[in-house]
Each structure stands twice: as structure tokens, then as C-alpha cells.
């Protein structure tokens, strides 16, 4: 972080006259190790660094990002940002004065129990070799792999108002995959942490069961080959946290993004069925639905102390007892819309400006065990691990698919079903919520490929959720 502070000081010394400026400096280091079919893939180490300069001048706002952190490079970025500020002052959608100014002093660092560097590359590859070997249990397993990723982000935001926010996020991400095939039927199963990312160090290996999960992953892939297709009909549906993550993400998170409601995303990610008049009165779901923006959950992907505009983060209810309370909008969007929001203006990297993102969006736990939820289903399907996702540009008509389904009959789990899918309409779906798992059943997960924005940005967002029960959902399978 010290080298970023040095760069910020150099920029402060050469920054042009402006009403306000900020510089967001990012240094990243990532690594990916993988063993596929017993053969180590080339291990990849990536080092990134760059600066995003934002400048407010003459009633306009502009930005410029650069990987050239020399004095000349920073000065060139400032000139380019000033030029775009001049254009925005003339042709802008809103006054630059709405842009939030930050003078906050904050620090954040991911909790890491076992540092990435505490194991050698050779030891990590040995571990992955063992995990990969455990997947090769049958000749019908036609592809299999085990991997371990690491990503550390140091970010420093410094502003002309004296703001100084230093945050370090660190992620260690293990995973397993097995592909089974028989004839023209292929089934894929993931595990070992593949869809269970959190902040942290090598302790995530044990937490995700990388060493132990291979047999289950491979056996389930094989079992799905011979399983019947998921039945079709309006059935009760229990979604495990591994699918609740996606359901929350697509049909609550995206529609509540304030920049979508303001129309910024209409050309790409889309608009929203939510309109400004709904906040404070719209019944988004059943009374069991409580959704929070919560940057304080330990280990959750987007936990932190401030967003990339420099606004300190704090927990807030977005939906309480089914009633819509506030959108996912950062300070700039709040000022444009005249609505309350949260600190969620985030950028994917040093070369992109902040926009409204989900950060951590969680469905709060209820008071039922998973067994209790199952016991209340006469005929239904339990679905596990997202496989497919599609939703309309207003975030209403969705269709999602999972890797694995399991029939529920007369309150008891039955056999596997393959290719489970379901579809619905967001505005109706959450009103069919009839059961929410308790704190013990909640899992802290997230989505690592959330894309939106022009230019495009993909970010990590956190979602914590328990299993949930929905009544009478359109469920179906694949081609028999």
C-alpha cells in the first residue's frame, strides 16, 4: 500500500486546478493453479496496477484511467479527465455538483488466517493433484479438474478534500469439476468451493472441503446420467443456498439498482420493472422476505468500509417483511433520483469508473431448518447449484436451471432428477415464498461474474442466504 500512497502524493503535487479531484490507485496480484486429468495446467501469475483520475471542473466531470504511473503519465491522465469534464459541462445529463465529495479516512483488510505464500507452488500443485485424482472414479468421467485461485487487491482512494481510504481484499478460491458422459447425455457437477467464494486465505481450502469433496462430486455427476428428467408442472420448489444466490442476484439485486431505474443501463444490462414510486409501499414478496445490503458480514465477497466514490458503507434494509424500502444506489445516483440508497458505487478495476453495483445483498434467515422446509412439501423439487440463468431486461421474466434436482414427495427427499429448470416472473415469484431457512442453514456465498455497465465491468458480489421454499412454481426438465 505504501507505493500507492507515494503515487497519490505525486499526483496531488501535480494535479491541475479543479473544484474537486480523486485518484483511485489499484494494485492487484492474482494466481491460478489447476490440475486437469492429472496434468498441471500452466500456472499463471498476474500483476496489475493503474490509476483512475476523476476531475470536477467548470461544472463538468470527467475521468481518465492510466497504467502509466509516472509523473508524465499521471499528468496526461489529468489533462484527459479535464477535457472530458469540459465536454460534460456542456453536454452533461446532470450537474457535476451532484458528485459526492469524500473526506473520509478509513481502512479495511480481509481477514486471512493462512497466507497464500505460506505454501509453495509445488505443495499447492501436489494438493491439487490429489484432489483431481479423487475425481477419476469411473471411465464415464470424461473430464475432471481441481483448481486453486488467489486474488489480492490493494486499493487507495485519495481526494482533494483530504479523503484517504485504504482497502485490501484477498480471496482464495478452490474448486472441483467432474464431467460424466454416456452416449449423448453429459452431466457436469461442481464442488470443493467452486461456487462458494469468500474473502480469506488458504484456510478456505479446508472450509470448502477441497480435499474431501471429489468423491461426492464425481458420484453425483455419474448418478445424474441415469436419473430421470426433472418432471414438468406447477410444483413446490426448495432452492438451496447455491441457487438462492442466483435467484436473489437476478430478480432482487439487478432490479433494485438505481442506475437501471434512472435509465443508464437501458442500452446494455437493461432497465427495471421497479419504479421510484414503489419505494416505501410496494409488496415485493411475502412477509417472510427480508433483504439487506450488508457490508459487514465477515468474509463475504464485497465486505468493506467504503465504496469507490468514497462513501462509508453501512448495513441497511432494502426489503423488510416483503415491503420495498430503498434501492441499491450510491451517493451520485441518490442525488440524481432524490431517493435514499446505500454505498454501492463500485468499479471492477482501475480502468473503469464506479457505477451502482450490488456489493453484499443478503436474504436474512428465518426460523426453519432445511428438514422442516422439506417436511412441508407434498410434491416438489429441491434444486442445487446454478447451471443456467436468463432474465428479461426489466428483470421480470426469468428462467433458471440447476446442476442437480431431487424429488420431494410427502415431506421426504426422494431420488435425483436431471436437467432441472424453473421459470417465473420476479414480481410474482417472491410472493410465493413460504419458508425461509434458519441462521444455521444460511451460507455466505456470492457471484463472481456479475456483468453490467458501458464500458463493461465484471465484479464480485456477495450473497448470503438460507434455503427457501416457494409454492407452485413452473418446473421442468430436458429432452428425454
Amino acid at each position, binding site marked *: 500500500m505504501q507505493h500507492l500512497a507515494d503515487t497519490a502524493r505525486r499526483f496531488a503535487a501535480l494535479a491541475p486546478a479543479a473544484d474537486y479531484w480523486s485518484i483511485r490507485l489499484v494494485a492487484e496480484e492474482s494466481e491460478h493453479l489447476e490440475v486437469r486429468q492429472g496434468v498441471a495446467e500452466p500456472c499463471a501469475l498476474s500483476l496489475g496496477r493503474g490509476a483512475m483520475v476523476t476531475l470536477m471542473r467548470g461544472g463538468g466531470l470527467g475521468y481518465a484511467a492510466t497504467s502509466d504511473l509516472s509523473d508524465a503519465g499521471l499528468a496526461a491522465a489529468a489533462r484527459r479527465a479535464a477535457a472530458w469534464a469540459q465536454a460534460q459541462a456542456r453536454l452533461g445529463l446532470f450537474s457535476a455538483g451532484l458528485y459526492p465529495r469524500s473526506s473520509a479516512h478509513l481502512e479495511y483488510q480481509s481477514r486471512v488466517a493462512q497466507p497464500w505464500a505460506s505454501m509453495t507452488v509445488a505443495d499447492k500443485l501436489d494438493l491439487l493433484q490429489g484432489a483431481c485424482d479423487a475425481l477419476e472414479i469411473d471411465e464415464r468421467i470424461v473430464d475432471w479438474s481441481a483448481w486453486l485461485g488467489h486474488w489480492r487487491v490493494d486499493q487507495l482512494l485519495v481526494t482533494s478534500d483530504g479523503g484517504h481510504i485504504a482497502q485490501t481484499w484477498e480471496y482464495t478460491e478452490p474448486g472441483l469439476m467432474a464431467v460424466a458422459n454416456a452416449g449423448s447425455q453429459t452431466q457436469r457437477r461442481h464442488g470443493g468451493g467452486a461456487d462458494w467464494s469468500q474473502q480469506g486465505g488458504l484456510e478456505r481450502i479446508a472450509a470448502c472441503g477441497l480435499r474431501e469433496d471429489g468423491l461426492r462430486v464425481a458420484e453425483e455427476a455419474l448418478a445424474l446420467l441415469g436419473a430421470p428428467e426433472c418432471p414438468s408442472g406447477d410444483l413446490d420448489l426448495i432452492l438451496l443456498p447455491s441457487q438462492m444466490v442466483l435467484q436473489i442476484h437476478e430478480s432482487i439485486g439487478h432490479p433494485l439498482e438505481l442506475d437501471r431505474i434512472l435509465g443508464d443501463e437501458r442500452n446494455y444490462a437493461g432497465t427495471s420493472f421497479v419504479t421510484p414510486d414503489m419505494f416505501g409501499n410496494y409488496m415485493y414478496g411475502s412477509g417472510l422476505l427480508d433483504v439487506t445490503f450488508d457490508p459487514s458480514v465477515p468474509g463475504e465477497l464485497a465486505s468493506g468500509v467504503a465504496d469507490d466514490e468514497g462513501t462509508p458503507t453501512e448495513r441497511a434494509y432494502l426489503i423488510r417483511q416483503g415491503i420495498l424500502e430503498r434501492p441499491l444506489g450510491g451517493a451520485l445516483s441518490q442525488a440524481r433520483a432524490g431517493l435514499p440508497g446505500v454505498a454501492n458505487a463500485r468499479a471492477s478495476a482501475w480502468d473503469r*469508473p464506479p457505477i451502482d453495483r450490488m456489493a453484499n445483498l443478503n436474504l436474512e434467515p428465518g426460523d426453519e431448518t432445511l428438514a422442516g422446509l422439506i417436511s412441508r412439501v407434498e410434491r416438489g423439487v429441491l434444486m442445487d447449484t446454478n447451471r443456467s440463468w436468463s432474465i428479461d431486461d426489466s428483470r421480470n421474466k426469468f428462467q433458471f436451471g440447476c446442476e442437480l434436482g431431487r424429488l420431494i414427495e410427502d415431506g421426504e427427499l426422494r431420488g435425483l432428477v436431471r436437467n432441472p429448470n424453473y421459470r417465473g416472473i420476479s414480481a410474482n415469484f417472491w410472493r410465493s415464498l413460504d419458508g425461509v431457512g434458519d441462521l444455521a442453514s444460511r451460507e455466505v456465498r456470492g457471484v463472481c461474474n456479475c456483468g453490467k455497465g458501458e464500458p463493461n465491468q465484471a465484479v464480485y458480489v456477495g450473497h448470503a442466504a438460507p434455503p427457501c421454499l416457494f409454492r407452485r412454481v413452473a418446473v421442468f426438465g430436458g429432452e428425454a
Partner: protein
Amino acid sequence: MSPAEFFALADALCARLKGNEVLFCGLDGEDSDFVRLNQGRIRQAGAVHSRSLGLTLIDGARQVEGGCDLGGDPGQDLAIVVDLLGRLRERLPQVPEDPYLNYSTEPGTGEHRAASDLPDPAGALTGLIEAAEGLDLVGIWASGDLYSGLASSLGHRYWHQGASFNLDWSCYLSGDKAVKAAYAGTHWDPGALDARLAEVRRSLSVMARPPKVLSPGRYRAYLTPQALKELTDMLSWGGFDLKSHRTHQTPLLRLVRGERTMHPAVSLYEDQARGLNPRFTGEGFLTPDRVDLIAAGAYRDCLVEARSGKEYGVPVNAAGESPESLAMDPGDIPRAEALARLGEGLAIGNLWYCNWSDPNDCRVTGMTRFATFWVEGGEPVAPVAVMRFDDSLYQLLGDRLEGLTQERDLLLSADTYGGRGSDSCLLPGALVDGLTLTL
């Protein structure tokens, strides 16, 4: 960064190699302006100056990869990459020998610079905003230089550079009622922009009519090239790469096994001769002009990148295993007659957010979006509220395909994840006797 600067940096690195080490250096850079628009005004405007270097260090049968961002100052950049080289060298003894290591041992040189004539971005935006007066225009302007380079200690020296603009936008009436348009290329023509705006205004006049609400069911449909692209994008997602085929993961498995067929009019190929992407791979191989993927409805060849090529013993023919320059052969329907041939049904301007609902049967779900109209008597008569479809490509591009248009559109990607993209596709429109709407 100029090619001379890049090659000088690579030479300096190669001079630091030890023993029998081999080094490949790949450079990607862009100088871009990005301007977001909403309600016909600038929402967010800025610029990105980016250079990133990728290294592959090889010693015998071992290899490790690395990457870093570069600034532009030769001295500082050299210090950064020498440090990275040192870290890679420390790792090399820790990795096992790689049976699938595969790189070109035949050095070559080449330089491709595409001619261009770009406007000043602020001036172009001023013109656009004035010309779009009265329209609720939303979208993105992206423009500037893109370049890629490859150098190796074996003597490879390749450079690919171009400058382009990509204006990707839509105009809204209300809610989700909108018409999408794009204007992208290497030579800016204000007249071409005016023509597109006029077409958008014409489509919006139909969009203003009361919408037709459809029930789930099967409808005849005409898919514009832009809509068809969403379906070919799905095929590109694992459909053509060698590894997916050899591990039975391709969604075209039943086509390959002879259990399903596509229409004889469907011929797809990777048109690398188009030249919008580099013709060299990161391992120093050169790509052929063309790879036939599906010919007359039957599966032909896979795209083969270096690693899979070594694993399965097949010659390299692509930098990656997804198409970058896909093309579909034209058909025999004059575009001007497409709606007349449709008669009654859907004219679909765009599909969106497609994903697999049953990859084993090449079945795709997705949404209609933007200008989708109900057609009667060969004329668009009303907009259609967005609908979900769920259908197998074995039907849409198989027994339900009536034909393809004679004319094709070159569609330049507006994707900017990880940097401005240069992918493109050349596609006709498609007339389909039945698209299944489900919601």
C-alpha cells in the same frame, strides 16, 4: 507503444534469459475514449490508457505464465518485467513437465496496420446529440487505438494495430419500448449516422402503436442478423472447440453423433482472413484464412488452440477455442422480401440473455428485446411485449429453418470486458417456421 518500443523491451528481456530458456512476450494495448449517454446527454465520459504484457517462460518441458501492466516509460517498464521474469524463473522448477506444452519453433515476422479515419470524439458526440434532438438516446461511444504484439526469444515478431469507433445505442419511447442501432467502423461518416437515426425514427413510429400481447405458443419468425447472432453466440459457447468435443461437453454432441441434423443451408466458418483480429496466436502459430465449422448442416472441423492441439494431436488453427470472426453463408431470400415471405408472425430485431435450458439437446432459452414487431400481410403492424423463448437450435437452424437472406451484416462487437474487443461476425437474417414462446 510502438512496435519498435515493444520489440526493444522484448529484446532486453530475452537478453536476460539463462541457459536454454525460451520466452514468449505478448502485448495488448488500447488508448480509448468511452462516453456513456442517457436521455440524449452525456452520463459519464472518460478515457483509458492501458498496456499489458504477458510472458510465457519455458525451460525444457516446463512452462509458467505471467502478466503485468506497463506504463510507457521504457526504463520503468523494463524494471517491472525483469522483476516478473525473476518471479517466473523461481517457479519454473516447482512445476512438473508439461506434456501439452506447444509453441511455434518457426520464427516469423509480420505487421498489420489497418487504415482509419476517426473523428475527434467530443466533436462526434456533439454532432450525435444535436442530430438526436428529441430522442431518448442511451448507449456508449467507444473509440481509439487497439494493438497487439508478439515477440519471442526464438525470433517471432508480430504486430497488429487498428483504430476504430463503435457507437452502440438505443432510443426509448417509454418503459422497455425501444429500438436499437449501432454504427461502428474505421472511417467516420456523419451521413451514415444520419441514415441510422432516420431508420430508428421510422421504427419508433411503429413502436408507438399499441403493443400486441402474445400468448405462449409457436410463431413464425424472421430473425434479423443481430438476433441470429445471439443464437450463434450460444453455439460459440463450447460448440466448436476441440476440447469440448473430445470430452463430450459440446452442445453439438448429438449433431456430431448423427442423432440430430441442421438445415443444409447452414454453413458456418471462422473467417480469420477478415483481418480484424491478429493472425498470430500467443504461441507464435499463424492461423489459416478459414476454418469450416459446419458445412451444409453437417459438423466439419473444430477450432484448435495450441494446448488442445498438442493434447489431442491436431494442428493448431486458432488463437482460442471460441470463434472471433464467425461467418454464416448467405441464403437465397432477398432481405427486402423477408417480411413478405414471413406473412404473419414475428419480426425480431434482437434476442437477449440467452442461456442453455438443455445443452444436451442444444436447447436455448432467451428473451426478445428492443424492436420486435408483429407482422401481418408482410408489414410490421404493432410492437410485441417482450417474450421468453425456449427452443432447440436443431429445430431453429434445422427442420424449422425456411431460409436465410441473400444479404449479410458485418456485426462488430461492442464488448469491452477486459478491454475493447475486436470480435465480429458476418450473418444473414433467418426465416423460421416456428419459434416457441413460453412466458
